[in-house]
């Protein structure tokens, strides 16, 4: 390699200093323009909001067991996925059960610990998350104090319309938090 002999550690005069500073600044501009455009696109999801949640018809009362055992139902709704808009596609699932006072309780099937889908074990009469073994009562409360989940299963507002149609205000919540915070 023909490395120059002219590299010198001699102190810079003002002109030399400004020339070097200008050279560095120009180099920085050249790098920042493509990098800045790229970062803007990369960070684009930060400026967008997730679905706000809306009432979704899930099933009918007739489909719910009278004994209060939870049953899982898919939730079908409109889903916007970047450029696509899908109608009537699965966006999640809920457990529905009749309560003692004749009402309906809805729980999001997503475990509040790490976001796995929880199973209902009829033989044990409780919910069990297959990922980290969090357990919940049929009402969705934490069954075991040593459970990894830091909050109960996420309940959702339910409305019975026309005497038989079960509508759920569906939305997802951030996993791993003690508070129930909607996914934004």
């Amino acid at each position, binding site marked *: 390699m023909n490395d120059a002999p002219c590299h010198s550690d001699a102190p810079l005069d003002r002109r030399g200093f400004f020339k070097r500073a200008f050279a560095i600044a*120009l180099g920085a501009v050249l790098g920042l323009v493509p990098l800045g455009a790229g970062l803007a696109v990369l960070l684009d999801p930060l400026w967008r909001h997730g679905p706000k949640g809306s009432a979704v018809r899930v099933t009918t009362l007739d489909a719910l067991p009278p004994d209060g055992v939870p049953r899982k139902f898919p939730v079908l709704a409109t889903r916007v996925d970047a450029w696509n808009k899908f109608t009537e596609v699965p966006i999640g699932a809920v457990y529905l059960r009749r309560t003692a006072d004749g009402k309906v309780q809805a729980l999001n099937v997503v475990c509040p610990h790490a976001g796995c889908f929880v199973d209902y074990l009829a033989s044990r009469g409780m919910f069990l998350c297959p990922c980290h073994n969090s357990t919940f009562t049929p009402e969705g409360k934490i069954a075991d104090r040593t459970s990894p989940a830091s909050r109960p299963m996420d309940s959702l507002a339910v409305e019975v319309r026309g005497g038989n149609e079960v509508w759920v205000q569906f939305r997802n919540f951030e996993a791993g938090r003690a508070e129930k915070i909607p996914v934004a």
Partner: protein
Amino acid sequence: MKVLFDWLDHRTGCRGIIRALLYENIPGGSRWRYVWGSTLTFALAVQFITGIFLWMAYSPSSHTAWESVYYIQDVMTGGWLLRGLHHYTAQAMTVLLVLHLMQVMVDGAYKAPREVNFWFGVVLLLLVLGLSLTGYLLPWDQKGYWATKVATNLMAVVPVAGPALQKIVIGGSEYGHHTLTRFFALHAGVLPAAVIALVIAHIYLFRRHGIRAKDPKRKPDEAFWPDQWLKDTVACLAVLATVLFLIVRQRLFSSHGSLGAELGAPADPSEAYSAARPEWYFLFLFQFLKYFPGTSEVWGAIIIPSLVLLLVFLMPVIGRWRLGHRFNLGLLASLLAGTALLTWLAVAEDRNNRNYLEAIQLAERDTRRVRVLAQSPAGIPGEGALALLHGDPLTQGPKLFSQKCAGCHRYNGTDGLGAVPKTAQSASDLRGFASREWLAGLLDPSRIATTSYFGGTKFRDDKMVKFVQKDVAQYTPAQNGNLRKVIAALSAEAQLKDQIAADQRDEPMIQEGRILLENVMRCTECHQFHKPDDQATAPDLTGYGSRKWLINFIGNPAHPDFYGSHNDRMPAFGQDQILNAREIGLIADWLRGSWYEKVSESASQ
């Protein structure tokens, strides 16, 4: 800080690397003519940076490629800038490569001992052209799709292995998902890896042999830093400024001008785009092929370009001869002049080609339209944006009309697409069909027998025409007032989107018109109107011009509800399966002005 840097230097030797990079000797001092290599390195860096970020948002499949590019371009923050930088820097690179090659040739930097580096450079040129070719297809728009199809079709003329090679490259017999995955892997994986390897080798060899200084040396030797660096960065800045100008140029001259790179309508395998052209720097090859008829295509596509390339590769060898350098310069000048001439011929030919210009106009219309539809509340369905255009009356209506209806009918004097058909008009002009204005013309004694209505048909001497020309012509002002009410009532049957407000406003007048139509104006002597009438001999006026009425009419005008046995020449488009139900629906919707419009567009209209 110094301690940290010393530690890092001790472990990595980074000081030596930086020194080697910055303090390369420039014989005769810094010069502007040495900037081209650095501008190319800069352009390459921009392509890598922007390409990686684009990669994070691009989805290579035939149902998602256009859609993801649209999303980057029109929706994502700064997407237009990112895509614009990538698109126009690619174009700038081609120009810079030619300038770099010219500088190398003129300075004699391709000769011994730099032959290998010259060959690396030529291979790099080919790789960059390969990146352009593969990148052109990735947005999956009409232009890229059809232009690249021509390029891959040409592969089939390669002797022996051509067809197999073509199949391998496009991932099957037809363009589809695997064409995109393969082109994307080439564009973002294989070719960039090869470029990186060759650029490292190219710069290594360049440093090994040093700059081929241009004599006479005007100054003492200098280090690369800071003077040559400064010149290089200023040149790079000029490249960047040019690219940025190209990105925003349309917006500079028009507030509606687009920003970023072009994105045409989504690729449509069912509709060839006759204005598809390769990127401008491949136009010379495109033009060159026109001079090789029939089976001699292999000469224009493969043999001659390969021989020219071989000659370019041999330039360092040729340059050893006494007149070799001059020969090489002459060869390069001839090649560049030939390329420029062929490019100019291609552009000039297109500029005077009416079909090409019409295809461009139609494509621009489809492009604007698909973006409006993509932004509509319905959004882009899972099957992709092409479905939006295929189901859009505003897009398909005029095309179907021009193919199936404009042989006899007109739409505002044209075939629906804006051109005036060569055949004479022999049926009504359907622009505004069933609107109050259209019906007022039909019932105007001076217009009913013109070609805009019945003039070109066998009905020109029929009862309806006679009734209008004799009876209506002698109407008193009061009767003319009643006629206007009848027109409003009949037009309201169509429930036209453009007239909803007027129909609601004039409801009392429309009610009055209905009574007049049934009882006073003699219409029901021949027509049926909301009451079954076996004696009716003319088209049913119940729901006249409504979607259902129009679909049934186009389906079979000779049905007893319409002209029956009196039907002139109009085919039964539905019954005879000339058009399917979806196509008839699209024509009906288009004639009725029923299509999605952006709210702001409707408001401004």
